[in-house]
C-alpha cells in the first residue's frame, strides 16, 4: 500500500547507459523539486482507521469478532425462534443426550435436555442473553464511573486526588466478594441487582487506570501546549485526554467483560444469581457441574460457551491492545 511513487516522471523518460557516453541532455539542470521535497509517501490514515485496519488483518481478531457477533445475534434471536421455551419441561424426558427428539412435542433438542427435561439449547441462548447483558451493562457503568472519577482525580491531582484515591483503595481493599454478597442479600434477586452489586466494586480498576493515564498524559508536552494556549479543563479533558485514553479504555473494557461473565457465573454458583426459571451460563454451569459425571454434556455446553466467549473477548482485547500500540505504529 505504501509503495506508490509520487514523484512525477519527466516528460521524456530517458534511458542512460552507464558504460557508454551519456547525453548532455541528461545533465540539464532542473534544480530543487519543491513539490516532492516535503512529500509524504504514505497515504493519510487516522489513528482509529489504522488500528481498525490492523485489526482486520489479524485472523485471530476477525475470528473473535465473528464469534462475538454470532453470540450476540444468537442471544437476541435464537430464544425467540426456538421450538421450546426457557421454562418448558418434560420431566419424563430429562437428562437426554444432544440431538434427541422430544417425546411430547416431537421437536429436536439440539443440546439435549436438563434435569427437568428443559431444552438446553434455548436455555443456553437465553443464558447468553443474561450473561452478555450483565457483562455489557456492568462494563458500561464501570466505564462511565471509572472514567469520570479517574479523570477528575488524575486531572486535578493534589489533595483531591489523594482523597479520591484513598476512597478507591478502601473500596478495593475490601474483597469485592463480600460487598457483592452483602448487597445481593439486601437486594431482591434479579438482573438489576447483579448489575448494581458488581458495578459498585467494579469501577475502581477503571478509575485507577484512567487516573494513571491522565497523570502521565498531563506531563506530555502537547497538553502543556494546550494549557499554555489557555485551554480550559473541559476542553483539555474532552478534546485531548479522552481521545488519547480511549484506546486504553476500550482495551480494558474488552478485557473486563470476561471477568464480569466470570463473576456472574461465580455468583450463580453461590446461589446468588438470577432467579429460576431464568437461565444464565453460571446457572447452567453450576447445574452441569453437579451431574457432570453422569451427564457430561450438561456441563460441557455451558462451559464451552463461557470459555469461548471469554477467550474471544480476551484475545480480542489483546489484539486491540496491539492494534492501538503506538510503538507498533510507524
Amino acid at each position: 500500500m505504501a509503495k506508490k511513487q509520487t514523484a512525477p516522471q519527466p516528460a521524456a523518460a530517458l534511458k542512460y547507459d552507464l558504460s557508454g557516453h551519456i547525453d548532455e541532455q541528461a545533465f540539464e539542470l532542473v534544480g530543487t523539486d519543491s513539490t516532492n521535497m516535503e512529500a509524504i509517501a504514505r497515504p493519510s490514515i487516522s489513528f482509529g482507521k489504522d488500528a481498525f485496519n490492523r485489526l482486520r488483518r489479524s485472523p485471530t481478531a476477525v475470528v473473535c469478532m465473528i464469534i462475538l457477533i454470532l453470540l450476540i445475534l444468537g442471544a437476541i434471536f435464537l430464544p425467540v425462534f426456538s421450538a421450546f421455551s426457557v421454562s418448558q419441561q418434560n420431566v419424563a424426558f430429562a437428562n437426554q443426550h444432544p440431538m434427541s427428539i422430544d417425546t411430547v412435542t416431537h421437536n429436536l433438542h439440539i443440546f439435549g435436555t436438563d434435569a427437568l427435561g428443559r431444552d438446553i439449547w434455548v436455555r443456553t441462548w437465553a443464558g447468553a442473553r443474561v450473561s452478555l447483558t450483565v457483562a455489557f451493562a456492568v462494563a458500561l457503568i464501570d466505564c462511565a464511573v471509572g472514567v469520570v472519577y479517574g479523570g477528575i482525580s488524575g486531572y486535578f491531582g493534589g489533595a483531591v486526588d489523594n482523597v479520591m484515591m484513598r476512597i478507591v483503595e478502601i473500596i478495593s481493599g475490601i474483597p469485592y466478594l463480600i460487598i457483592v454478597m452483602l448487597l445481593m442479600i439486601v437486594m431482591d434477586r434479579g438482573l438489576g441487582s447483579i448489575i448494581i452489586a458488581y458495578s459498585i466494586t467494579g469501577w475502581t480498576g477503571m478509575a485507577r487506570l484512567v487516573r494513571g493515564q491522565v497523570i502521565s498524559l498531563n506531563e506530555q508536552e502537547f497538553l502543556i501546549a494546550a494549557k499554555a494556549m489557555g485551554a480550559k479543563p473541559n476542553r483539555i479533558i474532552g478534546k485531548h485526554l479522552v481521545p488519547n485514553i480511549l484506546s486504553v479504555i476500550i482495551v480494558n473494557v474488552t478485557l473486563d467483560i470476561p471477568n464480569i461473565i466470570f463473576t456472574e457465573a461465580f455468583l450463580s454458583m453461590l446461589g446468588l444469581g438470577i432467579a429460576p426459571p431464568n437461565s444464565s451460563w453460571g446457572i447452567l454451569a453450576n447445574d452441569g457441574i453437579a451431574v457432570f459425571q453422569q451427564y457430561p454434556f450438561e456441563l460441557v455446553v455451558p462451559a464451552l460457551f463461557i470459555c469461548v466467549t471469554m477467550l474471544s473477548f480476551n484475545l480480542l482485547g489483546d489484539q486491540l491492545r496491539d492494534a492501538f500500540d503506538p510503538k507498533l505504529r510507524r
Partner: protein
Amino acid sequence: MAKEKLIELDHISKHFQISKKETLVAVNDITMDIYKGETLGVVGESGCGKSTLGRVVMGIYHPTKGTIKYRGKPVDLKRTKDRFAYSEKAQIIFQDPYASLDPRMTVGTIISEGMEIHNMYDAQKRQERVYELLETVGLNREHANRFPHEFSGGQRQRIGIARALAIEPEFIVCDEPISALDVSIQSQIINLLKDLQKKLGLTYMFIAHDLNIVKYISDRIAVMYLGNLLELADSDEIYAHTLHPYSQALLAAVPIPDPDKEAQKKTQILRGEVPSPINPKPGCPFASRCPYADDVCRSKSPKLQEIRPNHFVACHKVQPE
C-alpha cells in the same frame, strides 16, 4: 534601539517538593528582563532548569518565589483571567517534536485549536489561516488533514511553530526547538524563526545547549548552572569576554566542525560531576567543578553583578575592575 522591557523577572525561584525532606531547586532566584523584539538565549547543561524557567515565564508553572511583570504590570498567573489573557501573548515551542503534538488530532485541528480557544475569527477564516500558516512554515495545505505521526521530526517542529504563531503572540519561548533535529533541518528551523521574528516583530526566549546556534540567533545570552544564572550579556560580548569560569569551560568544550582548528584547540576538561539540585548546598553552585574555587566559593553564594556594561556575572573571582 530603544529597549522596551517586555517581561521582567524579579527574583524568580521554582522549587519542586519531591518528598517530605527533599526539595529540588530547579530555578534559584533569577532576576532578568526580556526586551521587546530581542532574542534571549538561555544555555546550560541538561537539568539546569532552562525548561523550568521557560515554563515559569509561560505561566505553566507558578514560581515558588518572585514575580513576573508583563509590560510593566505584574501578572498573577494564579488567576485564571490573567493567565488567559497572558496566554494570548505568550507561546511556547517544545523540544520533542514527537510528544508535543496530540497524536489523535489532525494537523489542521492542532493549529487552529489556539484560535478556537481565544475565539479568533470564524470557522472559515480559521481554516484559511491554517493553510496560510502551513505555507508560512513551508508545508502544503494538504497536510492539514494529516496526523502528526506521518511527519518527520523537522516537519513536526514546523507544525509546532505554526501552532504557536496561530494566535499571533508577541513572545515565544523556544524550548530547545532544534536539539532533536538533524543538522540540515536545524538551519531550516532557525532561518524560519529568524524570518518570522523579522516579519512579526516577535520576542524569543531561546533555550538550547548548542552554543554555536545560541550565539547565532540570540541578541543576549544567559548562562545557567544548577538553577542559577551565572552570566548574562550581549551575545558578542559574552564570546569576546567570557568571564565566568563555567562559561569559559562551556565554550571551550564545543567542538568546531573544522579538523585543523580542532587540532589546535586546547580543551580544558572539567573534572567532577554536576551536583544534584536536590537540597543544594550553600555556596557557589559551580564550586565543586571550578578549578579556581576556594573556601569562600564553597560557603557563600555569589551575587549577580554588572562587571562590564550590560555584562552580568555571578562569581567571587570576577570582580568589577
